[in-house]
């Protein structure tokens, strides 16, 4: 059995986590894609903290004598899962940024080559004004 104080602490922690995550999503500081796993973790911990019967059953099934330890076990499991999730996201991002850097360098080289092959032409007078007019007309 969990001490009432311990139970209150666990519930409080899970609720605070949930509120922070929701607030971050609301302010667009956290993408929904990454928030889902956090919210799922918080909800499971909250459910186990509120519903003592389920936590005791779980502890019994896992062969853990003290129910709070089972709660810690579940929480640590979620933390590991989240970390792995972020490592995977980082791998994807670094691969994407590598491709982006390569493309950018190749395009930049091609642009320099094109610019050098073209004789420097004076901008024809009026060209800028025509472009500005065209922009104004599309807006209107």
């Amino acid at each position, binding site marked *: 059995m969990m001490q009432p104080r311990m139970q209150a602490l666990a519930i409080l922690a899970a609720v605070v986590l949930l509120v922070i995550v929701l607030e971050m999503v609301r302010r667009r500081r956290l993408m*929904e894609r990454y928030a889902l796993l956090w919210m799922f973790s918080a909800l499971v911990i909250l459910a186990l903290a509120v519903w003592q019967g389920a936590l005791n059953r779980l502890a019994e099934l896992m062969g853990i004598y003290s129910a709070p330890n089972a709660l810690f076990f579940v929480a640590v499991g979620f933390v590991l899962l989240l970390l792995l999730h972020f490592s995977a996201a980082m791998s*994807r991002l670094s691969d994407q940024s*590598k491709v982006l*850097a*390569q493309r950018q*360098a*190749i395009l930049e*080289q091609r642009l320099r080559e094109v610019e050098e092959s073209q004789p420097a032409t004076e901008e024809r007078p009026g060209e800028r004004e025509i472009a500005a007019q065209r922009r104004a007309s599309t807006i209107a």
Partner: protein
Amino acid sequence: MQRYPHLKCLAVVPAYNEGATIIKVVEDLREHAPDFDVLVVDDGSTDDTRRIAESTGVRVLRLPYNLGIGGAVQAGFVFAAEHGYDRMVQVDGDGQHDPAEIHKLMDKMGSEAAPDVVCGSRFLTSEHEYPAPISRRTGIHIFAFILSRISGQRVSDPTSGFRLYNAPAIALFARDYPHDYPEVEAVLMVHHHRLRMVEVPVRMFSRGGGVSSISTGKSAYYMVKVLLALFVGLARKRPVPEPGGAPPVAAEPTL
């Protein structure tokens, strides 16, 4: 003196802080390999490598930040593939590869065996002792042993970057090239894709200047990392995505 008038050839020179040697490498390439267009890939150098390379008039890819040797060389593969090159040779910017020996690689590729990749090996000749610390050589020989077993042919120098590729090999590595310390894994990829690789004996110089990308302290770390990559690579069903297949790393799911 044009030796290969019907082939479009590119020499890719990956360079990270090689300001001391890059000019010599480019000059040697022009002298000994006149058929090859030269592309220096400046891997986000913090010294004046880029300025020196551009002053020679060769083409320079400016990578916006340091990608490591794998990413830099792959930029060369992508460039070669997009510009329709038939041959691409990698010549390191530190001057350890001798451009005068490129024709040896070309001759081998033109031979009857018609390999897809020709690799310059420093261990096939007894006349020249390669100056490397014993720890490094031990690592190389361990990789050589493993790769020889896997591929069923003798691979004596799997870490050599002095390699010549034909168009199918260029296309393969433009799509997917290993990240860091890529040469070893690339041998495995060549094998997986049923391409053929042969080695020819070459000399290699110790570095002309600058700092090696692999210090002795990092060797052990690289050993473990590449071994992991090798064995995980073996377990991969389809080591490389084919055109139209799934990307190597899943793209962002559309929301």
